[in-house]
């Protein structure tokens, strides 16, 4: 029954993109837990790292999902 699951190359690509996001998300959690002082550091436009990282995680989610959609669309 498993042959119809299509666990081919495309899924591996999805998992690679997923791994990238896990790194960004896990990194955020690690810094929040281990180095909370870094989260308060102001960078760039005067806003702290916590806000930047939070927004970046949201933007990354949209970006990675769009890349996945386009890549899979080309495969088919």
């Amino acid at each position, binding site marked *: *029954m*498993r042959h*119809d*699951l*299509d*666990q081919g190359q495309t*899924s591996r690509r*999805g*998992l690679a*993109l*997923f791994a990238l*996001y896990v790194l960004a*998300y896990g990194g*955020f*959690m690690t810094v*929040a*837990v281990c180095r*909370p002082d870094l*989260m*308060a550091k*102001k960078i760039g*436009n*005067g*806003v*702290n790292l*916590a*806000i930047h990282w*939070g*927004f970046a*995680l*949201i*933007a990354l*989610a*949209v970006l*990675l*999902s*769009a890349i*996945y*959609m386009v890549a*899979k*669309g080309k495969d*088919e």
Partner: protein
Amino acid sequence: MLPSSSTLAIIIFMAFAGLVLGISFWLGRKAKSAAGYFAAHGEVHWFVNGIAFAGDYLSAASFLGICGMIAFFGYDGFLYAIGYLAGWLVALFVVAEPLRKLGKFTFADALDAKFGSRSIKTTAALSTLIVSLFYLIPQMVGAGVLVKPLLGLPQEAGVIIVGFLVIAIVTTAGMVSTTWVQFIKGTMLVVFCTILVAMILARGFTEKPGDYQRIDAAAFAALPGERLAVDKVWSDKQLSRIRLADGRVQTWKEVAGGYVLCQTLNKKAKLVDGLPQTPANDLKQVGSVLDLPGDSKEARNLSPSEFLSTLQDSTVLTWPETMIKDPKEGDVFVYAPTPRKGEELLTPGGSSTFKALKGDEFTWGKLDFISLMLALFCGTASLPHILIRYYTVKDASAVRKSTVVGIAAIGFFYILTLFLGLGAMASGAMDPSSNNMSAPLLARSYGEWPFALVCAIAFTTVLGTVAGLILAASGAVAHDIMAGLLGHDLDEAAKVKAGKIAAVVVGILAMGLGILFKDMNVNFLVGWAFNVAASANLPALLMILFWKGTTKQGVAASISVGLISSIGWILCSEQACKDVYKLADPANAALVPFSQPAILTIPLAFLTLVLVSLATRKKTI
């Protein structure tokens, strides 16, 4: 605060809610078969389905709960937003397509596609039912919260109104109309909140140093009135009480350099500062900036980054709640004015839940944070009402497209919530006793129109989400539990009929629970639902998709262990002792060291699946 209503707000609200319901009935009138009722014939356009994904997901919890948490505690509310969105990537990259290829209508179908086992079907359906109920509670609480200030009705009335409306939607229309309700509401929510954020940025901040008044010890000693002898529970918190000539009881908190005047509310006896709660004697609206950076007294027309950096360098007046269990008066809630630095509020750890994050040592509190972030990450892909949406579009490509549209809409909205919450924090319009009300009260500070619109949108949000959840739960009952009990599948008409009866029962159950949990932050309740969903459903789902050694006994055992262990843990946690059982000393009463179970119960469910599968493998080959 007491409910207050305005005719304009009620008219706008009724018109909007009526329109959405009318459209949903009209669109849903054709759905008679099971495929139409539970999966909208698989014909929904991917863009509509994508926005409906957002509509489903941006529930009362996202809108009311996250805004409220940000308004009261700052960045900690935003942590939920980050976690909720992250979960979508698990759904898209790992679960969505294989799941769609396996299933038909429900999560249980998908799990059962390989084995055809009744035990899996029944356990998975039970898990769907329980997770849906857990997720329904905060939605119902949110409904009550909205109706209270808008229609001037008690919170219980809101829960009952939503319950009946949703039962009407679900039993008459099914998935087509639910999808359209979600689409309309998702669009309105994002568009209107964008406008509201533009208004917040234009208004910016105004310094109100007079909102914080501290008197020194000499002035405190000279205050008129009778000094009350207070129980130890008050003095332990540095609180003193003075009865004035008119009967009012002032509560003063000793702070560094003097005393500050608090507000008190006895919810049961309906007393504010010791006198009956009336429109003239009610809690004062709060939330203001005490000190802006530099010498400026106000900062207007800010860009998004200027808004955040200005607040970060300001001092904000917050009103944290302390519950005092007075032996004679019962539970008295004290709100003490507390100035806090913006930089402290804009980093993780501002709320009591995550305050451990501010420290350098590794404590249980930090583990609680990791566990919650894990639950949010893993929970989305395991939510039954999100999973059923994978069957409402025509093919795998449409699934991907609609998920991307959903992620974009949800992500954008979550960025808006940070501004909405922080805007509310400085709006001077917040109710210190209800953080769930922050977003609607923020809108009210711009007039009755925005207030009515926000309430109407939020109310349809609740309607849509509750409809989706009840549909998922009733699908599980009609499709899987009934089949499991009877030993054979029902025919099409009987399935729809059983689904509708189940919808009525689940709806009534949800109303009862909504009233029982009415005082809890809706976001926190949703966090629990994610813990349960992630522990019960995700291990089974992933292993069935990616491990060939999985057996049917392993799947059923994993779901049962995940479900029981996560619910059991939650019921024994400090948060449950505090908010559900209302115990005096929740930290000591709790049987487990932290509140969010996912970090233990997800691995436990995986382990159970592997061990049981290995033990039962020979029998199934």
